[in-house]
Structure formats: C-alpha cells, structure tokens
C-alpha cells in the first residue's frame, strides 16, 4: 500500500464479500422454491428481490472499494477526502440494511405505502424495486463517490486506467437518474428502464470492469504501455457496440419494429470487447520477465475474460438475434445468461480485485499464506465450475421450456410446463449448493485463515 488513504477500500471489500454470501443464500432459497417446496415465512418474490438487489449492491460496494484502492495509486495522490469515503460507506451500508429489512419484514405493498411511493412512483420494476427515498440516498452516495474520485484524479496524475475508471463511475451516476423516471405508459417505462440497466451492465459497468482488469494486468506484468494499447482497443469497441446494442431489449415491448434491426445488428458485435479481453490477457501475461507471485490473482485475472466471453458474450449472442429472441425472450434462457454473465463479468472482477488488494491492505504483503492461497484457488474452482454447470442446466431447462411452451401447436398449462423441467431445476439447485460451499470456503478463508496465518 503506497498511500494510507487506500485503506478506505477495506470496509468496502469486507462488506461486499459478506453481502455476497447473503445473496447466494437467498439464491438457494429461490432454487428450492423452484422445485415446488414451499418455505414458510418467505415468499418467492421477496427472496428473489433480495437475491437480485443485493447482487447489485455488493457489486457496487466492490467497485467502490476497487476505485478507492486504485485511484490514489494511479493518481499518485492521497484520496481527496477519505473521511467522505468512510461516511459514504456507513450511509450506503445503512441504506442496504434498511432496505433489506424492509423487504423481509414488511409486505411489499406496505413498504411502498410507508415510503410514499404514491407521491413519486418508482417502485415495482425489476432491479428498481427500492423505495424512492432509498433510491435518492443511493444517488447521493453515487454522487459523493464520483465527486471524491473526480477530485482526486483532477489533482493528480492522469492515466488511461484512472480516467477510464472515472468515466465508468461518473457515467454510472448519471444514468442512475433514469431510476426516477417511470412514465405511466408501460411501454415508455420499460424503454427508459433499460437506459439505466443496459447502460450500467453493458456500458459503464463494463468500462469499470475493463479498467480494473487493466490495472491488475499492469500490476502483474509491470508494462503500462502495452496494457494501455490493449485497453484503448477494448474500450473503443465497447463504446461503439454497446450503445445501440440497447435495441436487443426493445424487440417485444411495443416500440417500433426498426428496433429489431438495430438491436440485432449492433448486439452481434457486443461479443467483440470480450474477445479482445481474452486476447489481451493471454498476450500480455505470457511474459518471462514477470515475477508476480500471487497465483490466486493470476488465476482470477486470466479466467475473468474467458468466462466473461462465454457467459456475457457467447451466451448473450446465442439469444440476442431478434428471430431467436422471439422464442427465448422471457424464458429460463434469459436466467441462464444472467447468472453466468453476472458471475463471469462482475463477480469475478470484484473477487480478482479483492484477491489482489486484501493481502496488501491487511499485512502489506503481495501474497497470502500458502494455505490461504490454496483455499482461495479451491473456492475459485468450486464457484466457477458450479456456476457454469448451473447456467448449463438452466439453459437446458430454457430449451425444454421453449419446446413445450412455444414451439408446439397446443401448449401445456403453465404448471405442467414447469414440472417438465423439474430435473433441471434440481440439478441447478445442487449446483447452487456446490457454489455455496465454494462461497463458504472463500469466506472462511477471507475472514479467518488469513487472520490466523496472515501476519507471520
């Protein structure tokens, strides 16, 4: 750690990891409900709400931690205001806890009533279920975060990595404004909801991910020039393909037909940034001079682009063409893609960053104790393999669903269609359990083993 203010990242990483475990736990609950076992005290909708909302929240914690760690080092400058960063951490954590408890303890309609949703309705849309006041709080946190990062870079050295991170962070904050826009025309409401979700997940978040990956690869190889050259190509391709790629969300929501053409043509190329990322890491890391010893980080950093290429790129491409999407839209196929894409692109990049930064933040060492390294690598394999298999099982369920529900003359009733996929749902749940075991090993290692052996 070169700058003391980088230590601000620590609580962010710790919270991210803790919330990750909670998120996966709720995933297991939904998985069980899918195989027709009713669980008392919690409905599917509530568990799903927490599963998806916490995902977004903990990834944001992870990105914030990553930024607070990377920016001082890249800018050769202490963080502009590290007290603000600490304050925002507590505000963000309080918002998260209040919202999650609200979801758990209150019926959603009651939660909407007491937070005054009727005066400014923004709730009840997928991923944007938070009460309006909470959204305002989140927006304030994002603004403070952007301000802090921007001021640090402004006063310090500007590199391609920190500028890209800045663009990603400020861009994410700006498009969050669309969380507050919920027109009464459902079609328009859906149209603008994607301005937030698409531009986060396939735009600004992708830029943040690329910046973090570039930073890690730079740390492994020590060669900034070549990293920046690749980063430049990757970012250029991302920017030119993902903007109009938004069209692939607009095929069947009631907007004009030309969106089918726009979405199909542009989203074909959304595969390219991930392809270049794979080329990037393999070209760059294959150097003989590199003497970087943290194998866990290397494993995470090399696997992230490959998995992202498969999960976000290939799985996305398979159902992005309008004629295919006509059959796959709103089936388990979407769920399969979402699981692997979120894991491979965003979960893995945050865990890469945590794996890199935590040993330094804790003990001022590049590498964890040997046992700790081995456990982390074991957790990596358990999580990555089981998530890939889960995505495969859900995708098979999706293909079965399309076959019995949409490609036949007379479709079966909904429940019978779902029953026909129950084997896949069981396999998915088993995959989820293995994933959770991976998470437990990761967490135990993260919170305990490192403490025991870390400071030698």
């Amino acid at each position, binding site marked *: 750690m070169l700058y003391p203010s980088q230590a601000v990242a620590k609580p962010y990483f710790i919270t991210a990891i803790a919330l990750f475990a909670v998120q996966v736990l709720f995933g297991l609950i939904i998985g069980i409900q899918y195989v*027709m076992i009713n669980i008392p005290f919690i409905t*599917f909708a509530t568990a799903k709400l927490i599963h998806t909302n916490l995902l977004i929240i903990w990834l944001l914690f992870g990105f914030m931690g990553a930024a607070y760690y990377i920016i001082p080092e890249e800018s050769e400058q202490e963080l502009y205001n590290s007290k603000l960063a600490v304050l925002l951490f507590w505000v963000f954590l309080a918002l998260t806890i209040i919202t999650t408890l609200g979801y758990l303890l209150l019926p959603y309609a009651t939660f909407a009533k007491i937070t005054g949703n009727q005066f400014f309705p923004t709730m009840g849309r997928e991923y944007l279920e938070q009460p309006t006041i909470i959204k305002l709080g989140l927006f304030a946190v994002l603004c403070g975060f952007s301000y802090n990062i921007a001021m640090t870079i402004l006063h310090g050295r500007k590199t391609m990595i920190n500028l890209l991170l800045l663009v990603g962070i400020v861009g994410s904050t700006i498009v969050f404004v669309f969380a507050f826009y919920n027109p009464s025309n459902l079609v328009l409401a859906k149209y603008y909801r994607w301005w937030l979700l698409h531009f986060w997940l396939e735009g600004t978040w992708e830029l943040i991910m690329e910046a973090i990956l570039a930073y890690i690869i730079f740390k492994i190889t020590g060669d900034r020039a070549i990293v920046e050259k690749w980063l430049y190509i990757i*970012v250029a391709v991302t920017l030119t393909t993902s903007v109009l790629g938004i069209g692939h969300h607009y095929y*069947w929501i009631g907007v004009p037909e030309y969106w089918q053409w726009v979405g199909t043509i542009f989203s074909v190329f959304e595969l390219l940034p991930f392809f270049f990322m794979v080329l990037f890491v393999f070209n760059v890391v294959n150097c003989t001079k590199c003497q970087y010893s943290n194998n866990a980080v290397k494993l995470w950093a090399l696997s992230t682009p490959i998995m992202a290429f498969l999960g976000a790129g290939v799985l996305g491409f398979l159902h992005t063409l309008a004629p295919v999407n006509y059959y796959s*839209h709103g089936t388990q196929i979407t769920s399969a893609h979402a699981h692997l894409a979120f894991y491979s692109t965003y979960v893995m990049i945050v865990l890469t960053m945590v794996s890199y930064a935590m040993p330094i933040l804790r003990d001022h060492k590049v590498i964890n104790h040997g046992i700790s390294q081995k456990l982390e690598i074991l957790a990596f394999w358990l999580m990555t393999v089981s998530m890939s298999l889960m995505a495969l099982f859900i995708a098979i369920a999706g293909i079965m669903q399309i076959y019995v529900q949409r490609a036949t003359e007379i479709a079966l009733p909904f429940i019978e269609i779902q029953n026909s996929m129950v084997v896949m749902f069981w396999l998915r749940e088993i995959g989820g359990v293995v994933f959770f075991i991976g998470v437990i090993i990761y967490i135990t290692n993260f919170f305990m083993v490192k403490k025991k052996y870390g400071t030698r």
Partner: protein
Amino acid sequence: MKIKISTKPIYYSSLIVLLLLGLTIHTTIVLPQRDHLTPQIIKGKMVWEEHNCIGCHTLLGEGAYFAPELSNVYERRGGSQGGIYFIKAWLKAMPTNIPGRRQMPQFNLTEDELNALIAFLKWTSEINTFSWPPSEKG
C-alpha cells in the same frame, strides 16, 4: 512502446449516440399517439408495481420466470367474454393451498384496485408486440 491515439472511435461513438437519440425521439413521439391511457389504467399500473408482481410473473417477458406471463392474460382468460371475471375470481381465490404447488399470496385488493389492475392488463394485452408471445401460454 508509443501508443498512437486516434480520435476515430470517439467520432463513431458520438455518431452512434446521436443515432440513439434520434431513434428515441421518434419512438417517444410515436407511442403516445398509439396508446390511450385512462386514469384507471394508470392506477392499475401502480397497483401492479406496488405489489411487486414482477417478483414472480413476467410482463412482456420481463420480470421473474416463476409464474406465468401476464401481458396476454386478459385474452388468455376469455378477453371481453370473461377475462375480467376470471382474473378477479382468480385473485380472490389465492392462495390455493394445493400441496406441492407454487402459491400466489392473497393481496386483499379492493374492488377499485382489482378493476384498475384488470384495465391495465387489458391495455397491456393490446400493445403491438409483433405477435409476441409466440404462444397463448406465454
């Protein structure tokens, strides 16, 4: 190694952003002319949102895949021939408590809210989606 920075990608992506804005303006102008919203439909959308229906169902394919697609439920359940009565009776009969079957909660909607919700679902079923969903079952 010296990196040659070309401004071409910035130029292209600005063009693309302009194209997006143009298409958005066109879409935004065209839609309200097609769709006629009444206060009841607007209220129905709020009932839909405040009970987190997308927590289990999909609407135009977006939401959760735990329960049936509802953009065409009005037609599926009889349209003007009985869609209203079916949906109303269905919502009032929940939960079914049939063992081993997914359960929908009882939301205790008022008569007013039920009518608004159904008006909203009827309006949604009339959106031009280029014949999506492919089958009546969603």
